[in-house]
C-alpha cells in the first residue's frame, strides 16, 4: 500500500528543525574546518524563517508546507540556502494532498537534478549532492517495489546517511571546501549531513 495519512509533513519539518537546532554548532564546525564557518547560521536562519512562515499560515498540505520551506531557503544567503530552496521546491511541486512513495520518488529525483544543474556538482564532489542522489535512488527503488512511505523514507535516510559518510574521505571539487584542498579530507560535508538529517526526521518520533 502506498498512501499515508500517518505522515504529517508539518510534523516532519518540525522534527527536522528541532534536529538542526540540536546539531547546528556541529554543522558550523564542519563548515569552519572546510569552508567559511557560516553553514549552521545560514541553515538555522532559513529554518527559523520556515517556522515563522508555517506559524503565520498554518497548513497541513504537503505542498503548502514545502513551499514555505522552499521560500524560506530562497530568502537565505550562502550557497546552501538557494540550493536547498530549489531542492525543497521540487517536493512542493511533486507532492499532492497525500504523500505517496512514488510522489516522493519523483520529488527527490527532480530535486537532486535541479541542484545538480544549478550547482554543477556530481556525486563525489563532496557536496549535498552526495546525499541527495542516493536518497533519490532509494526512493525510486522503493516506488518500483511498491513499499509504503515510512519504509521508503527510512531507506532514503539510510542511503543519505551513507552518502554523507562517504564525503568524509573525499577532496572537495565544489563550493568553498574546494579551496582548502587536502584540509577538507576527514571532514564530513555539512550539506550532505543535513540531507541525511532531513530524511531521518521523516520517520523519527516527534522530538521530546
Amino acid at each position, binding site marked *: 500500500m502506498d498512501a499515508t495519512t500517518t505522515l504529517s509533513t508539518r510534523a516532519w519539518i518540525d522534527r527536522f528543525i528541532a534536529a538542526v537546532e540540536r546539531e547546528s554548532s556541529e554543522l558550523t564546525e564542519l563548515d569552519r574546518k572546510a569552508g567559511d564557518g557560516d553553514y549552521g547560521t545560514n541553515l538555522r536562519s532559513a529554518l527559523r524563517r520556515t517556522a515563522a512562515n508555517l506559524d503565520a499560515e498554518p497548513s497541513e498540505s504537503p505542498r503548502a508546507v514545502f513551499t514555505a520551506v522552499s*521560500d524560506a531557503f*530562497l*530568502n*537565505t*544567503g*550562502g*550557497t546552501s*540556502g*538557494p*540550493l536547498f*530552496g*530549489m531542492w525543497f521546491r521540487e517536493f512542493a511541486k511533486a507532492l499532492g494532498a497525500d504523500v505517496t512513495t512514488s510522489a516522493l520518488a519523483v520529488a527527490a529525483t527532480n530535486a537532486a537534478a535541479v541542484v545538480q544543474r*544549478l*550547482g554543477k556538482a556530481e556525486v563525489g564532489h563532496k557536496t549535498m549532492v552526495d546525499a541527495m542522489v542516493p536518497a533519490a535512488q532509494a526512493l525510486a527503488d522503493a516506488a518500483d517495489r511498491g513499499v509504503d512511505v515510512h519504509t521508503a523514507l527510512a531507506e532514503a535516510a539510510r542511503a543519505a546517511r551513507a552518502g554523507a559518510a562517504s564525503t568524509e574521505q573525499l577532496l572537495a571539487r565544489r563550493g568553498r571546501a574546494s579551496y582548502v584542498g587536502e584540509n577538507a579530507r576527514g571532514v564530513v560535508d555539512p550539506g550532505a549531513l543535513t540531507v541525511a538529517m532531513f530524511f531521518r526526521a521523516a520517520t523519527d518520533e516527534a522530538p521530546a
Partner: protein
Amino acid sequence: MPVRQLINDPDEFVSEALQGLQRAHPHLLRHNPDPAYLVRADAGRRDKVALVSGGGSGHEPLHTGFVGVGMLDAAVPGAVFASPTAYQIRAAVEAAHRGRGVLLVVKNYTGDVLNFSIAAELVADDGIEVETVLVDDDLATDGHDEGPGRRGTAAVVAVEKICGAAAERGAGLAEVAGLGRRVVDSARTMALALESCTHPGQSRRSFDLPDGEIEFGVGIHGERGIGRRPLAPVRELVPELARPVVDALGLRRGESVLAIVNGLGATHALELSVAHRELTEFLDGQGIHVARSLVGPYVTSLDMRGCSITLVRADDEFVDLWDAPVRTPALTW
C-alpha cells in the same frame, strides 16, 4: 577600533543607505524594504523590456544608482559583497516587469550566478519571460579553464547603459539580450589597487601593501589581485592596465572604443582625470580612437584606492545607444 565611517550599525548599513538614496530621488525611485530592492518610480507601466541587476553592496553607485529612465528598472542589493537572495531577485523582477519580459544583468560571481539563475527559473515558472546576460570582463581572472571564469566588473555599466537605452526605445527581449552579450564580448577590464578596502565595522583593510608596491589585477571585493608591482607614475600604470585590454580585445589601429576610467572608491576626481589623460595618450599612440569616455567612481570596492580601465570595442550602434538619454541617480545625460 573600527575604521571611521558615517555609519550606525553595520547590519543596517545597506538598508539605511537604500532609504537615503530613495529619499534623495523620490521622483525616480521606489524602495521596497522587505525583500529589499529599488525599482523605477514608474514601474508597472506595461510598455518595455525591463532590466534588473544586482549583487553585493559596497560597489555604489552600482547598481542602485543606475535605476531610472534609460537604464535599470530595478536593482537588487545584497549585503556588502554578498549576493542578494533568489527570493529578493524574484520580487524585484516581478515589480519591475512591464509586460515585455525581463533582462537580468548578472556579474559573474558564484553567488550572484546561482541566485539569479534560480530567480530566473522561479519567475519563468510564474510566466515572465526572462533572459540573462552574464558579464565577465575582468582580464585578471582570464585563462583558468576549469574555474568559475572571468569575474564581472566595470563593463557592467556599459551593458546596463546600452541595453537600457535599447529597451527604452522599444527593442524586444531577444534583441536587448543579444546586444548585451555583444557588449560583454566586446569588453575587457583591468584594475589596480593603491590601497585595499575595509568592510563596514571592521578595523583592518582587507590586505596590506608594502611600501612602494601596488596590487595589480584586483577585483571588487577586496580580494588580492594577481601580483604586486612597483608603484609608478600614473603615465606608466595606465598603460600597464590598458595594454593587456587592447591585446585581449585584439583592437587595431583605426578602431574605436568606449572607455571607462573607474575609481575604486577613495580615488580623487583629480587622480581619475589624470588617469584618463594618460589613457587617451596611450590609445592615441596605438591609433585607437576614444569615441566616448566615462570617468568617475562607478563600480567601487568600498574605500579602495585605485582604478580600473574598461574598453569596449565600439561600433555606431553602441555609440548611438550610449548617447541615448539616461536619467538615474548616478548617470544622467
